[in-house]
Protein backbone atom coordinates (compact mmCIF):
# COMPACT_ATOMS: atom_id res chain seq x y z
CA UNK A 1 0.00 0.00 0.00
CA UNK A 2 1.31 3.45 -0.82
CA UNK A 3 1.05 6.11 1.80
CA UNK A 4 -1.27 8.90 0.64
CA UNK A 5 0.64 12.12 0.17
CA UNK A 6 -0.28 14.87 2.58
CA UNK A 7 -2.26 17.71 1.11
CA UNK A 8 -0.84 21.17 1.54
CA UNK A 9 -4.26 22.60 2.33
CA UNK A 10 -5.01 23.53 5.94
CA UNK A 11 -8.07 21.28 6.01
CA UNK A 12 -7.31 17.86 7.54
CA UNK A 13 -7.17 15.10 4.95
CA UNK A 14 -10.44 13.27 4.64
CA UNK A 15 -10.36 9.85 6.23
CA UNK A 16 -9.76 6.87 3.99
CA UNK A 17 -12.87 5.00 2.96
CA UNK A 18 -14.03 2.36 5.44
CA UNK A 19 -13.04 -0.55 3.19
CA UNK A 20 -9.48 0.68 2.85
CA UNK A 21 -9.08 1.46 6.54
CA UNK A 22 -10.25 -2.02 7.40
CA UNK A 23 -8.01 -3.64 4.80
CA UNK A 24 -4.98 -1.81 6.18
CA UNK A 25 -5.76 -2.90 9.73
CA UNK A 26 -6.50 -6.54 9.04
CA UNK A 27 -4.04 -7.28 6.26
CA UNK A 28 -1.12 -4.89 6.30
CA UNK A 29 -0.49 -5.16 10.03
CA UNK A 30 -0.02 -8.92 9.86
CA UNK A 31 3.31 -10.57 9.16
CA UNK A 32 4.74 -13.96 8.33
CA UNK A 33 6.66 -15.46 11.26
CA UNK A 34 10.42 -15.64 10.76
CA UNK A 35 11.81 -17.42 13.83
CA UNK A 36 9.20 -20.19 14.06
CA UNK A 37 6.97 -21.88 11.54
CA UNK A 38 3.21 -21.31 11.42
CA UNK A 39 2.42 -24.63 13.11
CA UNK A 40 4.44 -23.61 16.13
CA UNK A 41 2.93 -20.15 16.22
CA UNK A 42 -0.65 -21.44 15.86
CA UNK A 43 -0.62 -24.90 17.42
CA UNK A 44 -4.37 -25.32 17.98
CA UNK A 45 -5.89 -24.89 14.52
CA UNK A 46 -5.27 -28.35 13.08
CA UNK A 47 -6.36 -31.06 15.52
CA UNK A 48 -10.10 -30.65 15.03
CA UNK A 49 -9.90 -31.73 11.41
CA UNK A 50 -10.98 -28.36 10.00
CA UNK A 51 -9.09 -27.32 6.89
CA UNK A 52 -8.46 -23.67 6.10
CA UNK A 53 -6.78 -22.79 2.80
CA UNK A 54 -7.00 -19.02 2.84
CA UNK A 55 -7.45 -17.09 6.07
CA UNK A 56 -7.87 -13.90 4.05
CA UNK A 57 -11.25 -15.25 2.95
CA UNK A 58 -12.61 -14.02 6.28
CA UNK A 59 -14.49 -10.73 6.00
CA UNK A 60 -15.97 -8.75 8.86
CA UNK A 61 -18.98 -6.96 7.38
CA UNK A 62 -18.79 -4.38 10.17
CA UNK A 63 -15.26 -3.52 9.02
CA UNK A 64 -14.49 -2.39 12.51
CA UNK A 65 -11.26 -0.51 13.17
CA UNK A 66 -9.70 0.35 16.52
CA UNK A 67 -10.68 4.03 16.51
CA UNK A 68 -14.26 3.29 15.47
CA UNK A 69 -14.56 0.53 18.04
CA UNK A 70 -13.59 2.72 20.98
CA UNK A 71 -15.54 5.72 19.73
CA UNK A 72 -18.81 3.82 19.69
CA UNK A 73 -18.16 1.83 22.87
CA UNK A 74 -17.50 5.03 24.81
CA UNK A 75 -20.77 6.46 23.56
CA UNK A 76 -22.66 3.30 24.55
CA UNK A 77 -21.21 3.40 28.06
CA UNK A 78 -22.04 7.10 28.47
CA UNK A 79 -25.66 6.48 27.59
CA UNK A 80 -25.88 3.52 29.94
CA UNK A 81 -24.31 5.20 32.95
CA UNK A 82 -26.61 8.23 32.56
CA UNK A 83 -29.56 5.86 32.96
CA UNK A 84 -27.99 4.06 35.94
CA UNK A 85 -27.42 7.34 37.77
CA UNK A 86 -30.92 8.61 37.07
CA UNK A 87 -32.49 5.37 38.26
CA UNK A 88 -30.48 5.18 41.47
CA UNK A 89 -31.00 8.87 42.28
CA UNK A 90 -34.76 8.67 41.82
CA UNK A 91 -35.22 5.46 43.88
CA UNK A 92 -36.20 3.83 40.62
CA UNK A 93 -36.41 0.37 42.18
CA UNK A 94 -39.68 1.45 43.82
CA UNK A 95 -41.30 1.84 40.41
CA UNK A 96 -40.77 -1.75 39.32
CA UNK A 97 -43.94 -3.68 38.53
CA UNK A 98 -43.40 -5.79 41.65
CA UNK A 99 -40.47 -7.01 43.75
CA UNK A 100 -41.08 -10.54 42.47
CA UNK A 101 -39.91 -9.32 39.06
CA UNK A 102 -36.38 -9.25 40.45
CA UNK A 103 -36.31 -13.04 40.58
CA UNK A 104 -35.69 -12.92 36.84
CA UNK A 105 -32.74 -10.58 37.41
CA UNK A 106 -31.34 -12.80 40.17
CA UNK A 107 -31.37 -15.65 37.71
CA UNK A 108 -29.65 -13.37 35.21
CA UNK A 109 -26.76 -12.22 37.38
CA UNK A 110 -26.21 -15.70 38.81
CA UNK A 111 -26.56 -17.53 35.51
CA UNK A 112 -25.59 -15.20 32.70
CA UNK A 113 -23.14 -12.57 33.98
CA UNK A 114 -20.45 -15.15 34.79
CA UNK A 115 -20.82 -16.47 31.25
CA UNK A 116 -19.95 -13.03 29.94
CA UNK A 117 -16.72 -13.19 31.86
CA UNK A 118 -16.01 -16.71 30.61
CA UNK A 119 -16.64 -15.48 27.06
CA UNK A 120 -14.24 -12.60 27.64
CA UNK A 121 -11.53 -15.06 28.57
CA UNK A 122 -12.13 -17.42 25.72
CA UNK A 123 -12.34 -14.78 23.01
CA UNK A 124 -9.00 -13.49 24.26
CA UNK A 125 -7.71 -17.00 23.58
CA UNK A 126 -9.18 -16.93 20.07
CA UNK A 127 -7.66 -13.50 19.52
CA UNK A 128 -4.30 -15.15 20.06
CA UNK A 129 -4.82 -18.50 18.37
CA UNK A 130 -6.86 -18.01 15.21
CA UNK A 131 -4.53 -17.76 12.26
CA UNK A 132 -6.14 -14.96 10.26
CA UNK A 133 -5.69 -11.34 11.34
CA UNK A 134 -9.33 -10.46 10.58
CA UNK A 135 -10.90 -13.11 12.85
CA UNK A 136 -8.25 -12.41 15.46
CA UNK A 137 -9.23 -8.75 15.55
CA UNK A 138 -12.94 -9.54 15.62
CA UNK A 139 -12.30 -11.94 18.53
CA UNK A 140 -10.26 -9.28 20.33
CA UNK A 141 -13.11 -6.77 20.07
CA UNK A 142 -15.54 -9.38 21.29
CA UNK A 143 -13.29 -10.22 24.21
CA UNK A 144 -13.30 -6.57 25.28
CA UNK A 145 -17.07 -6.40 24.71
CA UNK A 146 -17.71 -9.38 26.96
CA UNK A 147 -15.68 -7.85 29.77
CA UNK A 148 -17.72 -4.67 29.35
CA UNK A 149 -20.94 -6.69 29.55
CA UNK A 150 -19.82 -8.42 32.70
CA UNK A 151 -18.84 -5.13 34.33
CA UNK A 152 -21.92 -3.15 33.29
CA UNK A 153 -24.19 -5.93 34.50
CA UNK A 154 -22.47 -6.01 37.88
CA UNK A 155 -22.71 -2.22 38.15
CA UNK A 156 -26.33 -2.13 37.10
CA UNK A 157 -27.57 -4.90 39.29
CA UNK A 158 -25.51 -3.89 42.33
CA UNK A 159 -28.08 -1.16 42.92
CA UNK A 160 -30.69 -3.83 43.67
CA UNK A 161 -28.33 -5.59 46.04
CA UNK A 162 -28.81 -2.68 48.45
CA UNK A 163 -32.50 -3.44 48.87
CA UNK A 164 -33.23 -7.07 47.92
CA UNK A 165 -32.04 -10.60 48.67
CA UNK A 166 -30.36 -13.06 46.34
CA UNK A 167 -27.91 -10.69 44.67
CA UNK A 168 -24.92 -10.96 47.00
CA UNK A 169 -22.93 -14.08 46.14
CA UNK A 170 -23.67 -14.73 42.49
CA UNK A 171 -20.14 -15.59 41.47
CA UNK A 172 -19.72 -18.24 44.14
CA UNK A 173 -23.23 -19.50 43.46
CA UNK A 174 -22.50 -19.86 39.76
CA UNK A 175 -19.77 -22.35 40.62
CA UNK A 176 -21.81 -24.30 43.16
CA UNK A 177 -25.60 -24.12 42.98
CA UNK A 178 -27.54 -26.86 41.19
CA UNK A 179 -29.58 -24.87 38.62
CA UNK A 180 -26.55 -22.72 37.78
CA UNK A 181 -24.58 -25.78 36.76
CA UNK A 182 -26.83 -25.78 33.67
CA UNK A 183 -25.32 -22.60 32.14
CA UNK A 184 -21.90 -23.15 33.71
CA UNK A 185 -21.48 -26.65 32.34
CA UNK A 186 -22.56 -25.53 28.89
CA UNK A 187 -19.87 -22.88 28.78
CA UNK A 188 -17.26 -25.19 30.28
CA UNK A 189 -18.14 -27.67 27.54
CA UNK A 190 -17.57 -25.00 24.89
CA UNK A 191 -14.33 -23.69 26.40
CA UNK A 192 -12.83 -27.15 26.59
CA UNK A 193 -13.54 -27.75 22.90
CA UNK A 194 -11.16 -26.64 20.16
CA UNK A 195 -11.18 -23.11 18.74
CA UNK A 196 -13.35 -23.99 15.74
CA UNK A 197 -15.92 -25.88 17.76
CA UNK A 198 -16.03 -22.92 20.14
CA UNK A 199 -16.87 -20.65 17.19
CA UNK A 200 -19.78 -22.90 16.25
CA UNK A 201 -20.92 -23.41 19.84
CA UNK A 202 -20.79 -19.88 21.18
CA UNK A 203 -20.48 -17.55 18.20
CA UNK A 204 -22.90 -19.36 15.95
CA UNK A 205 -25.32 -21.47 18.00
CA UNK A 206 -25.43 -19.31 21.11
CA UNK A 207 -24.96 -15.83 19.64
CA UNK A 208 -26.71 -16.17 16.31
CA UNK A 209 -29.15 -19.06 16.42
CA UNK A 210 -30.55 -18.56 19.92
CA UNK A 211 -29.50 -15.10 21.08
CA UNK A 212 -32.93 -13.62 20.46
CA UNK A 213 -34.51 -16.30 22.58
CA UNK A 214 -31.93 -16.08 25.32
CA UNK A 215 -31.38 -12.35 25.77
CA UNK A 216 -34.06 -10.27 24.14
CA UNK A 217 -36.78 -11.74 26.43
CA UNK A 218 -34.86 -10.56 29.50
CA UNK A 219 -34.57 -7.08 28.03
CA UNK A 220 -38.15 -6.76 26.85
CA UNK A 221 -39.23 -8.15 30.21
CA UNK A 222 -37.14 -5.48 31.93
CA UNK A 223 -38.65 -2.77 29.77
CA UNK A 224 -42.18 -3.93 30.45
CA UNK A 225 -41.65 -4.26 34.20
CA UNK A 226 -40.11 -0.86 34.82
CA UNK A 227 -36.50 -2.00 35.05
CA UNK A 228 -34.88 0.74 33.03
CA UNK A 229 -31.25 -0.02 33.97
CA UNK A 230 -31.44 -3.67 33.00
CA UNK A 231 -33.14 -2.75 29.76
CA UNK A 232 -30.38 -0.23 29.08
CA UNK A 233 -27.46 -2.56 29.76
CA UNK A 234 -29.29 -5.21 27.80
CA UNK A 235 -29.74 -3.11 24.73
CA UNK A 236 -26.23 -1.73 25.11
CA UNK A 237 -24.88 -5.27 25.23
CA UNK A 238 -27.15 -6.37 22.41
CA UNK A 239 -25.75 -3.70 20.14
CA UNK A 240 -22.39 -5.45 20.58
CA UNK A 241 -24.24 -8.69 20.23
CA UNK A 242 -25.23 -7.89 16.69
CA UNK A 243 -21.52 -7.73 15.92
CA UNK A 244 -21.07 -11.07 17.67
CA UNK A 245 -23.90 -12.55 15.66
CA UNK A 246 -22.12 -11.39 12.55
CA UNK A 247 -18.93 -13.06 13.74
CA UNK A 248 -20.86 -16.29 14.26
CA UNK A 249 -22.44 -16.18 10.84
CA UNK A 250 -19.17 -15.18 9.20
CA UNK A 251 -17.40 -18.02 11.02
CA UNK A 252 -19.76 -20.69 9.81
CA UNK A 253 -19.79 -19.46 6.22
CA UNK A 254 -16.02 -19.11 6.17
CA UNK A 255 -15.46 -22.61 7.52
CA UNK A 256 -17.97 -24.10 5.09
CA UNK A 257 -16.49 -22.29 2.12
CA UNK A 258 -12.91 -23.26 2.90
CA UNK A 259 -13.17 -27.00 2.40
CA UNK A 260 -15.90 -29.47 1.63
CA UNK A 261 -14.47 -31.81 4.25
CA UNK A 262 -15.46 -29.24 6.90
CA UNK A 263 -19.18 -29.63 6.19
CA UNK A 264 -19.90 -32.87 8.10
CA UNK A 265 -17.80 -31.69 11.07
CA UNK A 266 -19.72 -28.42 11.22
CA UNK A 267 -23.06 -30.21 10.86
CA UNK A 268 -22.21 -32.38 13.86
CA UNK A 269 -21.33 -29.32 15.91
CA UNK A 270 -24.55 -27.54 14.89
CA UNK A 271 -26.52 -30.62 15.91
CA UNK A 272 -24.76 -30.76 19.26
CA UNK A 273 -24.76 -27.08 20.09
CA UNK A 274 -28.27 -26.32 19.00
CA UNK A 275 -29.51 -28.86 21.51
CA UNK A 276 -27.10 -27.81 24.25
CA UNK A 277 -28.06 -24.13 23.96
CA UNK A 278 -31.72 -24.94 23.51
CA UNK A 279 -31.78 -27.05 26.68
CA UNK A 280 -30.20 -24.19 28.60
CA UNK A 281 -32.81 -21.82 27.22
CA UNK A 282 -35.39 -23.88 29.13
CA UNK A 283 -34.49 -21.73 32.15
CA UNK A 284 -35.30 -18.63 30.13
CA UNK A 285 -38.59 -20.20 29.05
CA UNK A 286 -39.61 -20.69 32.68
CA UNK A 287 -38.57 -17.13 33.48
CA UNK A 288 -40.55 -15.62 30.59
CA UNK A 289 -43.77 -17.40 31.32
CA UNK A 290 -43.77 -17.39 35.11
CA UNK A 291 -41.36 -14.89 36.66
CA UNK A 292 -42.45 -11.65 35.03
CA UNK A 293 -45.35 -9.94 36.86
CA UNK A 294 -46.14 -8.33 33.53
CA UNK A 295 -45.34 -10.97 30.94
CA UNK A 296 -44.29 -9.70 27.52
CA UNK A 297 -44.41 -12.62 25.19
CA UNK A 298 -44.80 -16.30 25.90
CA UNK A 299 -41.98 -18.75 25.29
CA UNK A 300 -44.10 -20.36 22.63
CA UNK A 301 -44.61 -17.13 20.74
CA UNK A 302 -40.94 -16.15 21.02
CA UNK A 303 -39.89 -19.60 19.86
CA UNK A 304 -42.15 -19.38 16.84
CA UNK A 305 -41.09 -15.85 15.93
CA UNK A 306 -37.37 -15.94 16.65
CA UNK A 307 -36.57 -19.55 16.03
CA UNK A 308 -39.07 -21.19 13.72
CA UNK A 309 -39.76 -18.20 11.53
CA UNK A 310 -36.42 -16.41 11.49
CA UNK A 311 -33.93 -19.26 11.88
CA UNK A 312 -35.61 -22.29 10.37
CA UNK A 313 -37.42 -20.15 7.80
CA UNK A 314 -34.66 -17.66 7.05
CA UNK A 315 -31.20 -18.85 8.03
CA UNK A 316 -31.30 -22.56 7.28
CA UNK A 317 -32.43 -22.20 3.67
CA UNK A 318 -29.35 -19.98 3.30
CA UNK A 319 -27.07 -22.63 4.82
CA UNK A 320 -28.59 -25.36 2.67
CA UNK A 321 -26.48 -23.92 -0.14
CA UNK A 322 -23.45 -25.33 1.68
CA UNK A 323 -25.10 -28.68 2.40
CA UNK A 324 -26.11 -27.85 5.98
CA UNK A 325 -29.39 -29.24 7.33
CA UNK A 326 -31.49 -27.89 10.20
CA UNK A 327 -30.25 -29.23 13.54
CA UNK A 328 -30.88 -32.85 14.38
CA UNK A 329 -33.58 -33.07 17.10
CA UNK A 330 -35.04 -29.70 16.15
CA UNK A 331 -38.43 -31.36 15.79
CA UNK A 332 -38.32 -32.45 19.43
CA UNK A 333 -37.86 -28.80 20.41
CA UNK A 334 -40.81 -27.78 18.27
CA UNK A 335 -42.93 -30.61 19.67
CA UNK A 336 -42.38 -29.53 23.27
CA UNK A 337 -42.85 -25.78 22.87
CA UNK A 338 -46.24 -26.00 24.61
CA UNK A 339 -44.70 -27.73 27.61
CA UNK A 340 -41.13 -26.61 28.20
CA UNK A 341 -41.69 -23.51 30.34
CA UNK A 342 -44.32 -25.15 32.54
CA UNK A 343 -42.17 -28.17 33.28
CA UNK A 344 -39.15 -26.04 34.09
CA UNK A 345 -41.03 -23.68 36.35
CA UNK A 346 -42.54 -26.62 38.20
CA UNK A 347 -38.97 -27.75 38.97
CA UNK A 348 -37.97 -24.28 40.16
CA UNK A 349 -41.17 -23.96 42.23
CA UNK A 350 -40.58 -27.36 43.86
CA UNK A 351 -36.93 -26.72 44.66
CA UNK A 352 -36.75 -22.98 45.35
CA UNK A 353 -36.01 -23.70 49.02
CA UNK A 354 -32.54 -24.47 47.66
CA UNK A 355 -32.34 -21.57 45.21
CA UNK A 356 -31.19 -17.96 45.47
CA UNK A 357 -34.53 -16.69 44.23
CA UNK A 358 -38.13 -17.19 45.29
CA UNK A 359 -41.08 -18.65 43.43
CA UNK A 360 -44.83 -18.50 43.73
CA UNK A 361 -47.88 -20.22 42.37
CA UNK A 362 -49.36 -18.18 39.51
CA UNK A 363 -52.52 -16.28 40.47
CA UNK A 364 -55.81 -16.41 38.59
CA UNK A 365 -54.99 -13.56 36.21
CA UNK A 366 -51.62 -15.05 35.38
CA UNK A 367 -53.18 -18.44 34.75
CA UNK A 368 -55.74 -16.84 32.44
CA UNK A 369 -52.84 -15.39 30.44
CA UNK A 370 -51.07 -18.74 30.34
CA UNK A 371 -54.27 -20.46 29.18
CA UNK A 372 -54.58 -17.92 26.39
CA UNK A 373 -50.96 -18.40 25.31
CA UNK A 374 -51.09 -22.19 25.59
CA UNK A 375 -54.55 -23.23 24.43
CA UNK A 376 -53.41 -26.81 23.79
CA UNK A 377 -51.67 -27.54 27.05
CA UNK A 378 -52.22 -25.18 29.96
CA UNK A 379 -55.78 -25.92 31.06
CA UNK A 380 -55.42 -29.57 30.16
CA UNK A 381 -52.15 -30.39 31.92
CA UNK A 382 -50.73 -27.59 34.04
CA UNK A 383 -53.65 -25.65 35.53
CA UNK A 384 -54.75 -28.63 37.66
CA UNK A 385 -51.24 -28.81 39.15
CA UNK A 386 -51.20 -25.13 40.09
CA UNK A 387 -54.72 -25.31 41.49
CA UNK A 388 -53.63 -28.09 43.74
CA UNK A 389 -50.77 -25.90 44.97
CA UNK A 390 -53.17 -23.01 45.56
CA UNK A 391 -55.47 -25.16 47.61
CA UNK A 392 -52.61 -26.40 49.76
CA UNK A 393 -51.35 -22.84 50.18
CA UNK A 394 -54.83 -21.57 51.10
CA UNK A 395 -54.73 -24.06 53.95
CA UNK A 396 -51.42 -22.64 55.11
CA UNK A 397 -49.11 -25.15 53.43
CA UNK A 398 -46.48 -24.90 50.73
CA UNK A 399 -45.16 -27.87 48.79
CA UNK A 400 -41.43 -28.20 48.41
CA UNK A 401 -40.06 -31.40 47.00
CA UNK A 402 -38.15 -33.31 49.66
CA UNK A 403 -35.20 -35.17 48.26
CA UNK A 404 -32.80 -34.61 45.42
CA UNK A 405 -33.72 -34.94 41.76
CA UNK A 406 -31.86 -37.01 39.22
CA UNK A 407 -30.00 -34.81 36.75
CA UNK A 408 -29.38 -35.28 33.06
CA UNK A 409 -25.75 -36.18 32.50
CA UNK A 410 -25.46 -33.66 29.65
CA UNK A 411 -27.69 -30.62 30.22
CA UNK A 412 -27.79 -31.09 34.03
CA UNK A 413 -31.46 -30.06 34.22
CA UNK A 414 -33.44 -32.31 36.62
CA UNK A 415 -35.01 -35.18 34.70
CA UNK A 416 -38.56 -33.83 34.53
CA UNK A 417 -39.06 -33.30 30.81
CA UNK A 418 -41.67 -35.45 29.15
CA UNK A 419 -41.65 -37.42 25.91
CA UNK A 420 -42.34 -35.36 22.81
CA UNK A 421 -46.04 -35.90 22.15
CA UNK A 422 -46.83 -37.45 25.55
CA UNK A 423 -46.86 -35.09 28.50
CA UNK A 424 -47.72 -37.90 30.92
CA UNK A 425 -44.49 -39.83 30.34
CA UNK A 426 -41.13 -38.66 31.70
CA UNK A 427 -38.45 -38.82 29.04
CA UNK A 428 -35.66 -40.97 30.33
CA UNK A 429 -32.72 -42.29 28.31
CA UNK A 430 -30.11 -44.77 29.44
CA UNK A 431 -26.62 -45.34 28.07
CA UNK A 432 -23.79 -47.59 29.15
CA UNK A 433 -20.17 -46.57 29.03
CA UNK A 434 -17.28 -48.53 30.59
CA UNK A 435 -19.82 -50.73 32.42
CA UNK A 436 -21.48 -47.75 34.06
CA UNK A 437 -25.00 -46.48 33.42
CA UNK A 438 -25.65 -42.85 32.56
CA UNK A 439 -28.99 -41.09 32.23
CA UNK A 440 -30.06 -38.35 29.89
CA UNK A 441 -33.30 -36.41 29.53
CA UNK A 442 -33.93 -36.60 25.78
CA UNK A 443 -32.81 -38.06 22.48
CA UNK A 444 -30.80 -34.87 21.96
CA UNK A 445 -28.83 -35.15 25.19
CA UNK A 446 -28.37 -38.90 24.74
CA UNK A 447 -26.97 -38.36 21.25
CA UNK A 448 -24.56 -35.77 22.61
CA UNK A 449 -23.49 -38.09 25.42
CA UNK A 450 -22.88 -41.06 23.17
CA UNK A 451 -20.88 -38.99 20.72
CA UNK A 452 -18.33 -37.99 23.39
CA UNK A 453 -18.89 -40.16 26.47
CA UNK A 454 -15.31 -39.63 27.68
CA UNK A 455 -16.11 -35.97 28.08
CA UNK A 456 -19.52 -36.17 29.72
CA UNK A 457 -18.71 -38.86 32.28
CA UNK A 458 -16.58 -36.14 33.89
CA UNK A 459 -19.59 -33.86 34.46
CA UNK A 460 -19.74 -32.18 37.88
CA UNK A 461 -23.34 -33.06 38.70
CA UNK A 462 -24.52 -31.05 41.72
CA UNK A 463 -26.70 -33.81 43.13
CA UNK A 464 -23.95 -36.42 42.88
CA UNK A 465 -21.57 -34.00 44.52
CA UNK A 466 -23.93 -33.51 47.46
CA UNK A 467 -24.12 -37.29 47.92
CA UNK A 468 -20.36 -37.54 47.72
CA UNK A 469 -20.06 -35.08 50.58
CA UNK A 470 -18.45 -32.33 48.53
CA UNK A 471 -21.03 -29.62 49.21
CA UNK A 472 -20.68 -28.59 52.81
CA UNK A 473 -22.42 -31.47 54.54
CA UNK A 474 -25.34 -33.89 54.46
CA UNK A 475 -28.25 -31.61 55.46
CA UNK A 476 -30.11 -28.92 53.56
CA UNK A 477 -28.82 -26.10 55.81
CA UNK A 478 -25.24 -27.40 55.34
CA UNK A 479 -25.59 -27.32 51.57
CA UNK A 480 -27.33 -23.92 51.51
CA UNK A 481 -24.56 -22.45 53.65
CA UNK A 482 -21.98 -23.87 51.24
CA UNK A 483 -23.95 -22.44 48.30
CA UNK A 484 -23.84 -18.98 49.91
CA UNK A 485 -27.63 -18.81 50.15
CA UNK A 486 -28.81 -16.71 53.09
CA UNK A 487 -32.10 -16.89 54.95
CA UNK A 488 -34.77 -15.15 52.87
CA UNK A 489 -32.99 -15.47 49.51
CA UNK A 490 -34.87 -18.68 48.88
CA UNK A 491 -38.25 -20.36 49.12
CA UNK A 492 -41.70 -18.87 48.66
CA UNK A 493 -42.10 -15.27 47.50
CA UNK A 494 -45.23 -14.50 49.52
CA UNK A 495 -44.06 -13.58 53.00
CA UNK A 496 -40.40 -13.36 51.94
CA UNK A 497 -38.26 -10.42 53.12
CA UNK A 498 -38.43 -8.96 49.60
CA UNK A 499 -42.19 -9.11 49.52
CA UNK A 500 -42.64 -7.70 53.03
CA UNK A 501 -40.22 -4.83 52.38
CA UNK A 502 -41.95 -4.05 49.11
CA UNK A 503 -45.35 -3.97 50.76
CA UNK A 504 -44.04 -1.70 53.53
CA UNK A 505 -42.45 0.72 51.03
CA UNK A 506 -45.71 0.91 49.13
CA UNK A 507 -48.07 1.24 52.09
CA UNK A 508 -49.49 4.74 52.57
CA UNK A 509 -47.32 5.53 55.55
CA UNK A 510 -49.44 4.55 58.54
CA UNK A 511 -48.75 1.24 60.23
CA UNK A 512 -51.72 -0.80 59.14
CA UNK A 513 -50.94 -4.39 58.33
CA UNK A 514 -49.36 -5.10 54.97
Amino acid at each position, binding site marked *: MSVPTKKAASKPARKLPLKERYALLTRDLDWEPGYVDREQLFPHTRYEGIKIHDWDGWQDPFRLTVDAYYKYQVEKDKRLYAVLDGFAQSQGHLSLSDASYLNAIKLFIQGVTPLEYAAHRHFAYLARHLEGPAPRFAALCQSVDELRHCQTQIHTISNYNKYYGGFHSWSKMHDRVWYLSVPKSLFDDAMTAGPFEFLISISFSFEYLLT*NLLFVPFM*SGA*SFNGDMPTMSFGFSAQ*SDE*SRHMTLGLEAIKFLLEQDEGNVPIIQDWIDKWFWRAYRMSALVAGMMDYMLPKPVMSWREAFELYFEE*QMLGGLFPDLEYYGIQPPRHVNDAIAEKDHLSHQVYKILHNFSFAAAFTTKTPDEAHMAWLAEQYPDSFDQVYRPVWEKHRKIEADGGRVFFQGLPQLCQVCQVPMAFTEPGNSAQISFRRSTFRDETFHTCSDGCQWIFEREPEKYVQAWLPVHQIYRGNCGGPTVPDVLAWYGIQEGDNGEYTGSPDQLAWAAWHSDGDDKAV
Partner: protein
Amino acid sequence: MSTGTLRQVAIDLQESEENRALIEAIKDDNPELTLRHLPGLVKVQAAGRIVINRESVENRLGREWETGEFQLAIVSYTGNFSEWDDDRIIVSWEH
Protein backbone atom coordinates in the same frame (compact mmCIF):
# COMPACT_ATOMS: atom_id res chain seq x y z
CA MET B 1 -27.39 -11.86 -4.81
CA SER B 2 -30.62 -11.86 -2.96
CA THR B 3 -33.11 -10.81 -5.60
CA GLY B 4 -35.86 -13.34 -6.02
CA THR B 5 -35.82 -14.63 -2.48
CA LEU B 6 -38.79 -13.75 -0.35
CA ARG B 7 -37.49 -14.88 2.98
CA GLN B 8 -37.86 -12.25 5.67
CA VAL B 9 -34.96 -10.26 7.01
CA ALA B 10 -35.40 -8.18 10.13
CA ILE B 11 -33.59 -5.63 12.27
CA ASP B 12 -34.49 -4.86 15.90
CA LEU B 13 -33.77 -1.26 16.83
CA GLN B 14 -33.91 0.51 20.16
CA GLU B 15 -36.91 2.76 20.38
CA SER B 16 -35.38 6.18 20.99
CA GLU B 17 -35.67 9.77 19.87
CA GLU B 18 -32.76 9.53 17.43
CA ASN B 19 -33.79 6.19 16.08
CA ARG B 20 -37.19 7.53 15.07
CA ALA B 21 -35.46 9.49 12.30
CA LEU B 22 -33.43 6.43 11.38
CA ILE B 23 -36.56 4.32 11.15
CA GLU B 24 -38.25 6.97 9.00
CA ALA B 25 -35.26 6.86 6.65
CA ILE B 26 -35.42 3.07 6.46
CA LYS B 27 -39.12 3.34 5.66
CA ASP B 28 -38.36 5.83 2.87
CA ASP B 29 -35.96 3.44 1.19
CA ASN B 30 -37.82 0.18 1.79
CA PRO B 31 -41.45 0.64 0.80
CA GLU B 32 -42.38 -2.94 1.71
CA LEU B 33 -41.20 -2.54 5.29
CA THR B 34 -43.37 -3.72 8.16
CA LEU B 35 -42.93 -2.43 11.71
CA ARG B 36 -43.64 -4.19 14.94
CA HIS B 37 -43.39 -2.52 18.33
CA LEU B 38 -42.11 -4.59 21.23
CA PRO B 39 -41.30 -3.14 24.66
CA GLY B 40 -38.34 -0.80 24.11
CA LEU B 41 -37.87 -2.06 20.57
CA VAL B 42 -39.00 -1.59 17.03
CA LYS B 43 -38.64 -4.57 14.74
CA VAL B 44 -38.44 -3.66 11.05
CA GLN B 45 -39.00 -6.50 8.67
CA ALA B 46 -39.02 -6.96 4.90
CA ALA B 47 -38.93 -9.73 2.36
CA GLY B 48 -35.48 -10.38 0.94
CA ARG B 49 -33.55 -7.30 2.00
CA ILE B 50 -33.42 -4.05 3.90
CA VAL B 51 -31.24 -1.19 2.78
CA ILE B 52 -30.12 1.78 4.87
CA ASN B 53 -28.70 4.75 2.97
CA ARG B 54 -26.52 7.29 4.71
CA GLU B 55 -28.00 10.13 2.67
CA SER B 56 -31.59 9.25 3.58
CA VAL B 57 -30.70 9.06 7.26
CA GLU B 58 -28.91 12.41 7.08
CA ASN B 59 -31.94 13.96 5.40
CA ARG B 60 -34.19 12.76 8.18
CA LEU B 61 -31.78 13.56 11.00
CA GLY B 62 -30.70 16.92 9.65
CA ARG B 63 -27.05 16.26 10.42
CA GLU B 64 -24.12 14.23 9.22
CA TRP B 65 -24.39 10.54 10.02
CA GLU B 66 -21.79 7.79 9.69
CA THR B 67 -22.94 4.29 8.86
CA GLY B 68 -20.91 3.15 11.86
CA GLU B 69 -23.40 4.93 14.12
CA PHE B 70 -25.86 2.23 13.17
CA GLN B 71 -24.03 0.16 15.78
CA LEU B 72 -25.53 2.37 18.48
CA ALA B 73 -29.06 1.72 17.29
CA ILE B 74 -29.18 -1.98 16.50
CA VAL B 75 -30.22 -4.57 19.06
CA SER B 76 -30.46 -7.66 16.93
CA TYR B 77 -31.09 -8.77 13.38
CA THR B 78 -31.95 -11.69 11.18
CA GLY B 79 -30.15 -12.01 7.88
CA ASN B 80 -26.68 -11.18 6.80
CA PHE B 81 -24.81 -7.89 6.42
CA SER B 82 -24.08 -8.27 2.73
CA GLU B 83 -22.85 -4.71 2.43
CA TRP B 84 -21.56 -2.15 4.93
CA ASP B 85 -19.54 0.75 3.60
CA ASP B 86 -19.46 4.51 4.04
CA ASP B 87 -22.70 5.07 2.15
CA ARG B 88 -25.01 2.20 2.83
CA ILE B 89 -25.80 -0.93 4.78
CA ILE B 90 -27.66 -3.87 3.29
CA VAL B 91 -29.13 -6.80 5.22
CA SER B 92 -30.17 -9.71 3.05
CA TRP B 93 -30.00 -13.47 2.75
CA GLU B 94 -27.25 -14.59 0.41
CA HIS B 95 -28.46 -17.84 -1.09
